[in-house]
């Protein structure tokens, strides 16, 4: 995203209908499933990585069941802030898929 945004600063005139950087677009409307998690292990690097995402709404919990990569609850990286973990596992999916609220109601 950093590279795409940097390139766009230089040659965005080729695609003049793009009004926002790739970083802004991803934060606004792209969501990523969590598993398998390639980010840093618990600690300062993980915290910085989450800050670099720049949004607590991007990540959604996923298990990959029944595929071999299934990790059960271990799919949630250790060391995440509990508020963020709740957003990943609950609030964010509800925002992306509003219809599932009907089942929960």
């Amino acid at each position, binding site marked *: 995203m*950093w*590279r795409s945004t940097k390139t766009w600063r230089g*040659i965005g005139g*080729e695609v003049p209908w793009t009004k926002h950087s790739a970083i802004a677009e991803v934060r606004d409307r792209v969501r990523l499933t969590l598993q*398998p998690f390639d980010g840093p292990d618990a600690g300062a690097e993980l915290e*910085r990585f989450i800050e*670099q995402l*720049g949004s607590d709404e991007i990540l959604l919990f996923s298990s990959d069941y029944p595929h071999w*990569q299934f990790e059960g609850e271990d799919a949630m990286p250790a060391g995440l802030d509990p508020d963020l973990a709740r957003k990943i596992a609950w609030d964010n999916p509800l925002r992306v898929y509003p219809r599932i609220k009907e089942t929960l109601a």
Partner: protein
Amino acid sequence: MSTDTLERPRVDTTTQAGIVDSDIHPEPGRGAETLKPYIAQRWRDHQDLYGDPHNGPYATTYGFPRYMPGTARRDSWPEDGGLPGSDLHLMRKQHLDRNNVALGILQPLGFGALARNVDFGSALVSAVNEWQIDAFVDQEPRLRGSIVIMQEDTVASVAEIRRRAHDRRYAQVVLSSLISEPLGRRRYWPIFEEAASHGLPIGIHVGGPTGARTAGGWPAYYNEEHLSLVASIQTHLMSLVLEGVCEEFPSLRFMLIEGGIIWSISLKKRLDRLWRTMGSEVPRMKRPPSEYISECFYYSTQPIEEPENPGDLPALFEQVGWDRILYASDYPHWDYDDPKYAFKCEIPDDKMSKIMRTNALGLFRL
């Protein structure tokens, strides 16, 4: 979007030792015509009759036309009407002298290496290899050449490397990233064996007039292509590790040019994860993929990644390894990184001198 304006250079290039630039693009001033004296009459006739051997979609430009003429800085067009990168005096004035470049590695692009006619291609890369010495390296002691090969013809590539490997004016073997197959495939191994036997690193530079840009089809714009080239570099890195090239040729080193750096952190993590459960599929690898990557691969800086918070860069470089990263300018291309301003954060002097000088001196045995 970053709105920081730098008021002073971050890197002092005026130190007496100077810097090493691992990606400078020399260009034949009049394109293929300039190379004609270096090819046999048989191929001059062929060129006159059939034209440029590249199989890109357009006769006179790239498959993805650049937003900038010649992909170049607007101020890099020589007054004599030649192409950017063809005028050594201008290269000295705009870059070598201005930035105290002590050594620069030439990366000639585009001639012969991606021809479908492999015989014509081999004749052209050999011409490029002689021309860059005549036109640049012998005129300017600060420059070193690269042995360009026609990688789809392994026999010719091995012969070309063997012909030039003992000439210290060449610093590496170089090929483009958009080739016929991922580089770890067995057909390319004789090239690696030959390069390794001479202690020559293999440079992989993004691009090429042909070859698939993405695994999901052909994009429409240069904005997309510029980014998709990163994936072509990642493809070769994974192939070289997983097919066992790094295990088979432990002394061989690869320089990934213009393909980015920071992505290697998460790629190593994911490959290790896969290897822990599926390593039995790739038994030629004896160790975790990350170990091969950390030992065998180097990365050029340009275009340097720009985190939204510029101060994030050093911690990410720390994870990649400070000894893996080499400064490159990409002169005379439009996305040129000025060594004084490219790094928008404070980097300790000892780390900076590795990036700007000593890592390259070690890799290229200069």
